[in-house]
């Protein structure tokens, strides 16, 4: 094995001789950066196909693996949503679908999209690829653990998909998996389906914990020289905070799943009170279904921010780069991310206002929930103030950013409806809720993902994606998705409850048949539009325009590797030294409109840099 390390033998800690990172600067004091605290990372270089591409320890490859697998499950989720919309819009055309099928599709769609698609994509995909590059590390700090993390996720996905093929099919208890119905007859997949779901979640949590430890320690302990926390790009801040949330919130899900599995398999009564079913009293008693809801939402609400915070971070970077302007109020942005993350552990029961919990909780949770609105609003202001007096490149990436702002503000404001306890009473469990959370944590993060794909594709592959196809992709997705979810709020106002297989002839629904058909058509279109991206990726990989180094003229470290796309170890034989934050765009007096993070102060003495 020793020859695997030979490439690394010559790398030593940078001693104090190389302190001034610049070009032998004229004013060494100006460019002084402390020497490295720890010696350079010792990396395992794979040789065979298996160690290079399959069981790979390179965070960038792992990131791509996460990305591909998450996208694959995401496509399954998308197909499920098509089937659901077919049933809701055109029930006569969906004759093959029974209520059981419908509920199974609803459940798997929700679970896949939230956990196996968005969480895995943002943290596993973008996190793995970007964190080491952006903080100037050679790799994640525990590459082996990182590899195991991905393969646990892989097994979790396999178990999840296996539940489609077991007797009774996958669980159909809604993505919230509320007991008692999740494990009782009368809910589809209450046998093997729910067990496999719990097993899959436990595997996911275990795998994610391994990955999460990597992300956290890499950010905390393996930054490069000069990279302080307050110089990190907001992308890293978002992913970092989201990972902290995940590390502390997933335990509740793990415990909830474990206890529910015991209720199902051993007949314990953690969540099961005395139950009368088909005239027989079941052998349960004394448990509390609301306990599961508390555990689930103690995980579930931070989970919302696990998806949202990386999106916040990434979008901040994209807006800043493509407006050629520093992100407005960077410190406020960081504190808002941290504050939202911390507060998210004190708001969980706003999902449970009408669950029959202690009614006095309503006051506490409404207050904490609305407090969260303040830092979130600050972030929105700072995004649009970043656009203000910028020099906005209206390319595809920027379009996705603008689409994000519209959908996120829309979904955020409907969140204030649902967080405010008595306003939630008429709206909860209706289509208003569905419209809200799809807008705010479905479409808005999707916009960010797409923007990020168009932005970082040149880094990962060295080729640009086609702008023309990108614009088609954006406009169909944005306009389509908006016309799905904006009108859907009004279904909620009418009072149409969610999770209804069909409405029969209720007076509430008859007035909305036309709207439902329209929503379904839009959903088919939006789903289909995503295949433009896949086509675009394949086409651009073959014939795309070569991107070269730093094609967007960005400042952050990931664009500054000696070789593009970056190779294993990222930085060649010399780690970068950071002298400033990642947002020095359009600094007065500078020759170009960007100053990279590695530019030494002595090189730009005649500029008016305010913050370093």
């Amino acid at each position: 094995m020793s020859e695997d390390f030979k490439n690394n033998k010559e790398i030593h800690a940078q001693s104090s001789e190389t302190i001034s990172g610049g070009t032998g600067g004229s004013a060494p004091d100006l460019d002084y950066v402390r020497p490295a605290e720890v010696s350079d990372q010792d990396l395992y270089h794979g040789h065979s196909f298996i160690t290079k591409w399959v069981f790979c320890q390179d965070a960038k490859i792992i990131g791509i693996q996460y990305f591909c697998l998450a996208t694959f499950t995401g496509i399954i989720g998308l197909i499920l949503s098509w089937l659901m919309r077919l049933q809701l819009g055109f029930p006569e055309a969906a004759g093959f679908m029974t209520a059981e099928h419908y509920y199974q599709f609803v459940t798997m769609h929700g679970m896949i999209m939230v956990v196996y698609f968005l969480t895995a994509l943002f943290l596993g995909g973008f996190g793995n690829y970007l964190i080491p590059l952006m903080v100037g590390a050679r790799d994640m700090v525990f590459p082996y653990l990182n590899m195991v993390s991905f393969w646990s996720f892989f097994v979790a996905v396999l178990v999840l998909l296996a539940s489609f093929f077991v007797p009774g099919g996958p669980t159909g208890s809604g993505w919230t998996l509320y007991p008692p119905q999740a494990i009782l007859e009368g809910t589809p997949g209450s046998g093997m389906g729910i067990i496999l779901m719990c097993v899959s979640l436990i595997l996911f949590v275990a795998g994610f914990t391994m990955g999460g430890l990597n992300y956290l320690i890499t950010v905390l302990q393996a930054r490069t020289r000069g990279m302080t926390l307050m110089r990190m790009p907001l992308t890293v801040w978002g992913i970092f905070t989201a990972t902290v949330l995940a590390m502390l919130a997933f335990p509740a899900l793990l415990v909830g799943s474990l206890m529910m599995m015991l209720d199902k398999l051993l007949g314990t009564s953690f969540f099961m009170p005395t139950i009368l079913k088909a005239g027989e009293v079941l052998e349960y008693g004394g448990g509390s279904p609301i306990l599961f809801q508390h555990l689930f939402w103690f995980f579930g609400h931070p989970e919302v921010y696990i998806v949202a915070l990386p999106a916040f971070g990434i979008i901040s970077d994209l807006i800043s780069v493509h407006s050629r302007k520093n992100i407005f109020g960077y410190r406020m942005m960081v504190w808002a991310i941290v504050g939202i993350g911390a507060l998210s552990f004190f708001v969980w029961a706003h999902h449970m206002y009408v669950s029959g919990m202690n009614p006095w909780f309503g006051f506490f949770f409404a207050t904490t929930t609305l407090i969260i609105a303040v830092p979130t609003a600050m972030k929105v202001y700072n995004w649009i103030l970043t656009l203000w007096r910028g020099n906005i490149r209206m390319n595809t990436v920027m379009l996705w950013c603008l689409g994000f702002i519209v959908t996120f503000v829309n979904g955020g404001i409907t969140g204030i409806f649902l967080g405010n306890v008595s306003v939630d009473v008429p709206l909860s469990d209706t289509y208003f809720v569905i419209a809200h959370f799809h807008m705010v944590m479905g479409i808005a993060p999707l916009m960010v993902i797409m923007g990020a794909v168009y932005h970082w594709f040149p880094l990962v592959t060295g080729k640009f994606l086609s702008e023309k196809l990108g614009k088609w992709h954006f406009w169909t997705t944005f306009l389509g998705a908006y016309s799905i979810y904006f009108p859907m709020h009004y279904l909620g106002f009418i009072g149409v409850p969610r999770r209804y297989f069909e409405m029969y002839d209720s007076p509430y629904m008859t007035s909305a048949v036309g709207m439902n058909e329209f929503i379904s058509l839009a959903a088919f279109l939006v789903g289909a539009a995503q295949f433009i991206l896949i086509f675009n990726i394949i086409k651009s990989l073959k014939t795309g325009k070569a991107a070269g180094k730093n094609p967007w003229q960005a400042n952050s470290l990931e664009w500054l590797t000696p070789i593009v796309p970056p190779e294993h170890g990222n930085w060649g034989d010399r780690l970068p030294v950071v002298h400033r934050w990642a947002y020095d765009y359009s600094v007065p007096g500078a020759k170009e409109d960007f100053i990279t993070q590695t530019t030494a102060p002595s090189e730009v003495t005649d500029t008016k840099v305010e913050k370093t």
Partner: protein
Amino acid sequence: MVETDKKEQTTTHKIGIYLWIWGLLFVLSFFSYMVDWYQFQGMLRWSLILIFMFLKAGLIMAFFMHLFWERYALVNVLLWPMTAIACFIFLMVAEFKYTLFTRLLYFFVGG
């Protein structure tokens, strides 16, 4: 992983401190066992249990896990998340009291 090929030896603590803490832990465990042995009841029992528990936990964390000697950055990162747990405990106490109250009211008392 980080190579700590440093020439100087990492300083360690005198063995006495460990033996002291060890002894204290035995004594505290013995005390908490005595709480049960003498069958104290009510508030006295609960407060004694909690005091001994937190003392033991504190000693283990502070000295065996070296938290006392760690820098505040690490200590604070580890202890602040406990506020979320504290909030969860506090609210679940209110919740179980409410559940018990409704169960007794409607399933036993009636009316």
